[in-house]
């Protein structure tokens, strides 16, 4: 019995099967192998947390309201102008801060810091709280892959199980309350915080807009690609770590922009 053998039977364990239901040789290996023992403990905890989160997989609306209120209080965002022929969006609109001429770093864009933190937190949330066992055991890999492709290529307003909802959240981690699906087959529209990010860059450092846009698209594509893979292979812990890494890359991009334009 090797670590690989244990990993093959982990979905059964994660599905809530008691330890007693596992083959003796698996239990013996887990008992003798600290790495596998730690892995099993961690995955049990994740599965337990995920079950508790099933009813509230998205942060409460008040979270977004409080963030928006804070940004509005700082003058970094404003409510949309009424009388606009388009339906007024319910989300805040970014307003550039006037240029400071007395400093080499002329612009204030510190709002990117909480946004970057939110990106990272959202990534962490998606990676660590996704209810793996249900996906892993309710569908075969083949049907799971097909389902994931369908979910990503065809936007549908019909509610889908929690794992797919979490998948969508990964592409729109902040200010995203919509239930529209991620369109990973084509380039999706920038999320709200990405639009704010690019708006700030284009206003305050226009020469860098294209560069940051390209980098942002690349990072978002990495996140979507990895998320789709994780959806199809929920037990692949290394892929999950790569998903976390991809979110960290996005946070890094925001931080670099923050340093550049503040």
């Amino acid at each position, binding site marked *: 019995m090797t670590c690989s053998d244990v990993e093959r039977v982990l979905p059964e364990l994660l599905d809530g099967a008691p330890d007693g239901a596992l083959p003796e040789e698996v239990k013996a290996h887990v008992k003798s192998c600290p*790495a596998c023992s730690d892995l099993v403990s961690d995955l049990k905890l994740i599965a337990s947390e995920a079950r508790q989160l099933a009813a509230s997989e998205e942060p409460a609306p008040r979270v977004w309201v409080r963030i928006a209120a804070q940004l509005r209080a700082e003058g970094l965002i404003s409510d949309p102008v009424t009388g606009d022929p388009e339906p007024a969006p319910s989300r805040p609109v970014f307003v550039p801060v006037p240029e400071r001429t007395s400093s*080499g*770093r002329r612009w204030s864009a510190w709002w990117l810091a909480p946004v970057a933190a939110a990106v990272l937190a959202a990534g962490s949330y998606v990676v660590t709280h996704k209810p793996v066992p249900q996906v892993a055991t309710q569908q075969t890999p083949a049907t799971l892959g097909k389902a994931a492709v369908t979910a990503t290529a065809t936007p549908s307003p019909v509610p889908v199980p929690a794992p797919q909802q979490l998948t969508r959240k990964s592409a729109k981690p902040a200010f995203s309350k919509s239930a529209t699906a991620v369109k990973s087959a084509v380039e999706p529209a920038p999320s709200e915080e990405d639009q704010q990010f690019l708006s700030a860059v284009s206003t305050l450092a226009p020469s860098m807009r294209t560069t940051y846009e390209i*980098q942002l698209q690349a990072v978002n594509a*990495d996140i979507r*690609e990895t998320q789709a*893979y994780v959806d199809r292979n929920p037990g692949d812990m290394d892929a999950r770590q790569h998903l976390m*890494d*991809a979110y*960290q890359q996005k946070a890094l991009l925001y931080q670099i922009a923050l340093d550049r334009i503040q």
Partner: protein
Amino acid sequence: MASLHSASLRQANLRHANFGQYMAVMLVLGAGLASAAFAQTKKEYSFAVGPNANISVDTQYGAISVRPGSSTQVMVTATLKSDKVEVDLQQNGNRIQIASHLLSGADEQTGQVDYEVLIPPDATVSLHSSTGPLSAEHLQGDLTLEGPDAMVNVSNVENGHVHVRTMRGPITLTDVRNGHVEIASISGDVHMQSVSGPLVQVNSGSGKIFYDGDFGSGGDYKFTTHTGDIEAVAPADVSADFSAHSVLGRVHNDFPLQPKQHSRFSFEAGRSFFGTVGKAASEVVLRSFSGRIRLKQR
């Protein structure tokens, strides 16, 4: 015959006109260059410091080069490309802050300041430039180098932390010993030659990671990319515990690895390998999502 003569005249006139245009362009270029050269200003500053000084240099546009000098003095040479930029200096005890200060109307050309800084070898250094290049050499203190587009070069440093962060700027580390190395880049390539220490951690999204060295003794080496390739070259007598996995890419290994009972990755032919060489003094983890991983024997 008449038409031939007329054609010759036209060609002569054309040559004359081209020459005139050429001279005009050259005059304009020359005047521009002379003006730029005239506007360029070189300023020198010096500060007295004690052991373990802390020095930061921050410029929006321009190169920063740091080298060892006197153990009790910091010497700064700043080359300002125009009068649209100033240099701010501040000393608080052992801490020195040097920053470019853009004035109204400054752009990437006129706002450029190049810095050459001589510092005590044991000083802690923080460098930031959007455009770079950034370089530090022959130092022993902690180094932090950051710049979105900056090319970063670190060479012949030891015993300090080396932290580098870029967006797409390429990063080169040469002869870094006993360092705590952390490198993060979105799309910049990372090239390491003879880099060793207790921790060498490199993360690049789409950039390539290249390592040529012996992986030291007793260190953790973690190289991660998303789409970029990873290539590591080590001598035959290396002593390391290797683990490599590419989720969607291919892996290749030249070393005869001794199998391990436990591994952080499940074995997948062509996509992962793991095992030890020698006494497994260091741990080496190579991870990529879709890049190719290659471990080569020198």
